[in-house]
């Protein structure tokens, strides 16, 4: 049954999610933009450039991948929007991250459901890498 409560509940959940997003996106955006103003970004980008090349991504993208894998998707979103990336690059990063993210937390959760956490993490990292390689070829 649809009532006014349905819509206000949805609105409320939207606000809560936005607030949770903002708490992560704002600091990450500020820090990544700050790094762009220092030599750190150039050093990190240069270091990961050869590896990122396999996925058709610039060196800076390594930062987005690390944030997404270790923290969560929200942090990755904050980093993506503070970097200048093309639509193609963002699509590749998005797929790689959506297939595996927040690995420490999610592995702990899947561990509790009786699935081997290490196996699951390795497995999700593998499909993430494969998807990056494939998308770089087909897109």
């Amino acid at each position, binding site marked *: *049954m649809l009532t006014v409560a349905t819509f206000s509940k949805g609105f409320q959940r*939207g606000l809560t999610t936005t607030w949770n997003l903002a708490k992560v996106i704002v600091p990450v955006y500020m820090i990544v933009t700050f790094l762009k*103003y220092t030599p750190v970004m150039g050093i990190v980008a240069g270091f990961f450039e050869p590896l990122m090349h396999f996925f058709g991504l610039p060196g800076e993208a390594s930062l987005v991948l690390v944030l997404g894998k270790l923290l969560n998707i929200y942090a990755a*979103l904050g980093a993506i*929007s503070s970097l200048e990336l093309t639509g193609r690059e963002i699509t590749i990063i998005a797929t790689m991250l959506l297939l595996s993210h927040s690995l420490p937390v999610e592995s702990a959760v899947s561990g509790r459901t009786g699935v081997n956490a290490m196996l699951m993490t390795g497995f999700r990292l593998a499909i993430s890498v494969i998807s990056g390689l494939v998308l770089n070829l087909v897109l």
Partner: protein
Amino acid sequence: MDWIGYLSEALPGAGENVLMMAAIVIPVMIVLEVARDLKILDWIAQRMSPLMRFFRLSPQAAFPLLVGIIFGIAYGAGVLIEEARSGRLSWQDIFLINIFLSVCHAVVEDTALFMAVGANGLVILLGRFIAAILITYLISRTAWLQRENLRHGVPGAVKAAGGTGDNRC
């Protein structure tokens, strides 16, 4: 260090980002609430038996799987735990749903958020579904899964092994 340049880029940029996320997340959540109250997922779940057989899942697995795909793992897990307690799902069902959802969950929200920052929605959505379907299918066909499932006990198998005379299944 150009502090003025930094702040005049970072502050409006961060604010703009949050507003954009709000513009996407709030409508998405309202649509999801509407879908939930209209019980659209129950309706779809009842029509998913052929797909469930493809993954060697029981028909009862369709609902928790759908909830996880659309709303996210937190909701999917809630339904999953309820169903598991009621004994309607086998160990194999729960394991395979976990595998599928670990790759593909909360697709509405995630896809919308990445589209907002410039990703191609169709590619990221299809990419996830293809990966999840492929992996779940492959794992559902392994001898390892069959062995584990027997070890954890198939519902009904216990009764059959108990010598009630009803061994025909």
